[in-house]
């Protein structure tokens, strides 16, 4: 495929650490290695992470001045991003934007505005969401409005794909008689990956104590309540078990209280927040990894643990059953008794020595690879670039079909967007922009530094 210019748009990017951030960075790095030009657009973290910065290996990041409301996400406004986006997409000669994460309003806005500049759009959904509560109903409708006219959607697991298709209404009436609902052909599944070199198993140590490692954000979604309920039972039933809990969050209090109540200070060690570089050194201290999430679309933490040679116990939710073979993971339903059963099974397996960390690492190494993810994503980009752009009337009719109230609302937003764009074309003409003619050229840098 010919090299194109890609803009990744997400609220979630470095210096914040997380799955989405790591995914965007690794994907961008691999796309740059394949010859494309990639820039990232995100919001600023005042006072010092503002403006335009560069990251290795030649990734330009725009930190735009938007105020965040909660955990790194900006307020969903529909027009304030257009002036910045227009300037950036035009001056960088961008062909395609790739928006990440349903909770990122910058990403949603990017998809809604890009067609005005003739730029194609791709959306990646990283998480699973529910359908029942009021917040979900509203945010799902917002997602449906955004994804109505997107060119391609990528999900990280098949379960995630089902979830996104249902939430975002990515289905159409087929022309058969009687008409059925058919999923749009532009929804793809490309899993996450990990850098397996960073998660080598540690040296084998023969000891009687078996350490169970739990590393996650201590939040409700991650099922910390299940951990709080089952940890005392496990400690009582198996005297040679120790827990190692890393991470921070609102549920830390519950863990501390449980530890006090059952006097397990010597059995449960709390490590506090762990930097991503130190995750491997924490993982190799244990032989079992426990994940009690109530919802998980991919489960990269599970994959990292399996790569480091740990045996995994996890709740059977979301996309978790898709990521590892049956003999490397024990599943449990998200209730106390079943989690206890699964952990007991894992402990007996590991005590009997039936799990080989080195062999497990060798297997996981071959499953996931960032170069493959980038190659598959490039194929999606290629399909999008070859397809035809929808024209404005098509977009308006599709948007009107969103719903009795959502349809007209989103259509009004679309039309006001077009008017705002016309105003910007007059107020800040394209020819007066400071175009980017020089981008990071790694070959020139290598040749320039070769003499030193």
């Amino acid at each position: 495929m010919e090299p194109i210019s890609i803009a990744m748009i997400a609220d979630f990017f470095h210096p914040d650490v997380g799955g989405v951030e790591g995914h965007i960075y690794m994907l961008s790095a691999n796309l740059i290695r394949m010859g494309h030009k990639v820039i990232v657009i995100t919001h600023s973290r005042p006072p010092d992470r503002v403006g335009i910065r560069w990251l290795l290996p030649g990734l330009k990041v725009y930190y735009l001045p938007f105020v965040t409301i909660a955990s790194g996400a900006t307020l969903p406004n529909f027009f304030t991003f257009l002036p910045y986006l227009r300037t950036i997409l035009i001056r960088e000669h961008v062909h395609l934007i790739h928006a990440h994460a349903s909770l990122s309003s910058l990403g949603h806005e990017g998809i809604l505005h890009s067609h005005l500049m003739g730029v194609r759009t791709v959306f990646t959904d990283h998480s699973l969401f529910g359908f029942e509560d009021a917040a979900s109903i509203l945010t799902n409708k917002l997602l449906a409005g955004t994804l109505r006219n997107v060119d391609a959607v990528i999900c990280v697991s098949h379960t995630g794909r089902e979830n996104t298709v249902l939430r975002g209404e990515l289905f159409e009436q087929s022309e058969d008689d009687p008409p059925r609902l058919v999923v749009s052909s532009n929804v793809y599944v490309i899993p996450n990956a990990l850098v397996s070199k960073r998660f080598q198993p540690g040296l084998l140590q023969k000891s009687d104590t078996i350490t169970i490692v739990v590393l996650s954000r201590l939040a409700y979604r991650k099922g910390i309540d299940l951990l709080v309920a089952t940890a005392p039972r496990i400690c009582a039933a198996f005297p040679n078990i120790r827990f190692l809990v890393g991470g921070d969050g609102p549920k830390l209090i519950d863990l501390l209280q449980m530890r006090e109540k059952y006097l397990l200070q010597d059995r449960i060690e709390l490590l506090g927040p762990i930097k991503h570089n130190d995750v491997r050194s924490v993982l190799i201290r244990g032989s079992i990894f426990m994940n009690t999430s109530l919802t998980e679309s991919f489960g990269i933490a599970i994959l990292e643990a399996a790569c480091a040679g740990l045996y995994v116990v996890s709740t059977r939710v979301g996309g978790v059953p898709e990521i590892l073979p049956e003999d490397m993971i024990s599943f449990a339903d998200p209730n106390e008794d079943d989690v206890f059963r699964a952990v007991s099974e894992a402990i007996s397996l590991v005590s009997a020595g039936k799990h080989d960390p080195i062999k497990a690492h060798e297997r996981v190494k071959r499953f996931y690879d960032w170069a493959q993810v980038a190659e598959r994503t490039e194929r999606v980009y290629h399909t999008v670039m070859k397809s035809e752009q929808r024209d404005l009337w098509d977009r308006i009719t599709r948007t009107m079909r969103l719903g009795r109230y959502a349809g007209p609302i989103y259509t009004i937003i679309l039309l006001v967007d077009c008017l705002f764009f016309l105003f910007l074309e007059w107020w800040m003409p394209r020819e007066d922009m400071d175009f980017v003619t020089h981008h990071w050229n790694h070959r020139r840098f290598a040749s320039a530094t070769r003499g030193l």
Partner: protein
Amino acid sequence: MQRLRPLQTNPEFSILHTDSFHEYRVENWHLARDGSGTVVRHASAWSWKYSLFPLMLSVSWPKVFAGSLARVLISLAAIFFVWTRCTQVIHETIIVLPEHGIQLETHKGLPPLTFFTNKRFVPYTILRDLVINEGIKRWDVRYYLVVLKEGTTGRVALEVCFPNILPHFPILLQVYQDLREFVSRQVPSTPSLPHTQPP
């Protein structure tokens, strides 16, 4: 000692080389970028539109009660108008004094007369580096050339070159390439890498 205009697309940029100094000047106008070749001036001498103001002043002044607030406001408006007309940026320059340092100047006034100049001198002992970076200015993203100064306390400060005009990238690249020679010659701590040439 002739003033050169090295860039075809940006004739507002001129260079002057003499024995004792080198001057890089950017004037406050540019060619219209739609290819028509018309000159777009950002600093104008007296135009017919300005004559409307004394007309309005002479009509409204006697109509308003003497000593009232309205007269005060009208006079303030008149002073403000004269001040804005007399502080238009005419040109901005970088003067390189070999052996001494770099001087950044801004000349303001009523074209073609200069009334005010703002000069900032950066001696070579303090000058650390020269960088072109991009920055967000309201809704726009512009390239800017900046001189890094490091004082005796070790604190690094920035001095933006051409801060009012903010010329486009081709001019900045030309100035950067020329200035790097002076900077690398005088400041022994900066390693001299080969120039970046356009690909």
